[in-house]
């Protein structure tokens, strides 16, 4: 009986745990696909829009994605990015959040560097870490050009390099 009570308790705990934990953990492993969303037309920008045809320059802009957050109705969400037109139809689309702890970085035209206000992280125009605590270069969005329009796709990380 001494032995029995303990193992019955353990069995109940094990069964409850087996059914209780998976639904709590599961969302952490679910990957949602990001839809391709237009950032803007390349060239001849409309008033108030960023000029994506400018080459070799960092352009701060936002694009709008329609995302579904769990049980919420699909919602348009603004995402801040930095676009660099590298020429030859090549682009870099950087996520604006610092890879240290996620503060928004800003582009400094005079020093040609991205600055993070939180702990002094500095990135160069290629997104690589120049100074401060960020552990990896700026994250990037997949991009594609279709009918003269630049699109952003999924967010991805690049490994540290210097």
């Amino acid at each position, binding site marked *: 009986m001494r032995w029995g009570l303990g193992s019955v308790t353990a069995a109940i705990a094990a069964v409850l745990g087996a059914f209780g934990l998976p639904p709590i953990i599961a969302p952490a492993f*679910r990957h*949602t696909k990001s839809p391709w969303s237009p950032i803007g037309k390349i060239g001849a920008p409309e008033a108030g829009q960023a000029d994506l045809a400018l080459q070799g320059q960092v352009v701060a802009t936002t694009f709008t994605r329609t995302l579904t957050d769990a049980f919420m109705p699909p919602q348009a969400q603004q995402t801040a990015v930095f676009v660099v037109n590298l020429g030859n139809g090549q682009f870099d689309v950087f996520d604006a959040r610092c890879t240290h702890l996620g503060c928004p970085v800003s582009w400094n035209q005079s020093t040609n560097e991205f600055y993070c206000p939180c702990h002094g992280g500095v990135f160069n125009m290629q997104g690589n870490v120049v100074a401060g605590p960020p552990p990896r270069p700026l994250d990037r969005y997949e991009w594609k050009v279709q009918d003269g329009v630049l699109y952003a796709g999924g967010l991805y990380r690049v490994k540290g390099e210097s």
Partner: protein
Amino acid sequence: MDAAPERQDVAPEQGQGWLEERLGLRRVARRVLDRPVPEGVTWFHCFGGLTFFTFIVLVVTGIVLAFYYVPSPDHARASVAYIDSSLPFGSLVRNLHRWSAYAMIVLVFLHMVRVFVHGAYRKPRELSWVVGVLMLLAVLALGFTGYLLPWDQKGYWATNVGINIAGSVPVVGTYLADLLRGGHELGALTLLRFYALHVFVLPLLVGVGLVAHFAMIRKQGISKPL
């Protein structure tokens, strides 16, 4: 037929009021509350009790807030604004909850420092210390999860940064962060699981810890001051 034996186990006590006559609560209260304390107990010994007091205030005001708060991105802010501005005494309850939370963090640290300075964690009270540390973690987690619930800019970004700190843990960091967020982006599921942790899981953990903490203090008494 056997005659029912006369019951003798409850001694009739006369002239003590209706309840007392039946239940003898005074004796129970004396047994529970009248404990010998060592000589030379100081005001610093009150920090544990004060921490417990703030915990009670937090539980009561938290229950009231739970009658009105909605843990969903599209209603959290509005429901908090309603508590603040439209609900009679709502802002009082909300501010009591908020300030008690600050006070509890301060007091629990003062209590810990008191115990440390007095060396009260030494044998045989090691387990009181260990349970105390676990409660400390739960209390800090309560502060962290509660901060997000108003779903305002400050809470949103503080949580963003806090989860990113968890994400910087070697090897398991990214999983830990995704687990806390309930996904790769901070959103509805984050708010909901912080809510569940804040109102169910963590208070329960602290409650269980307190039972153990107090049981040990009763069993062992407070340590002799230095």
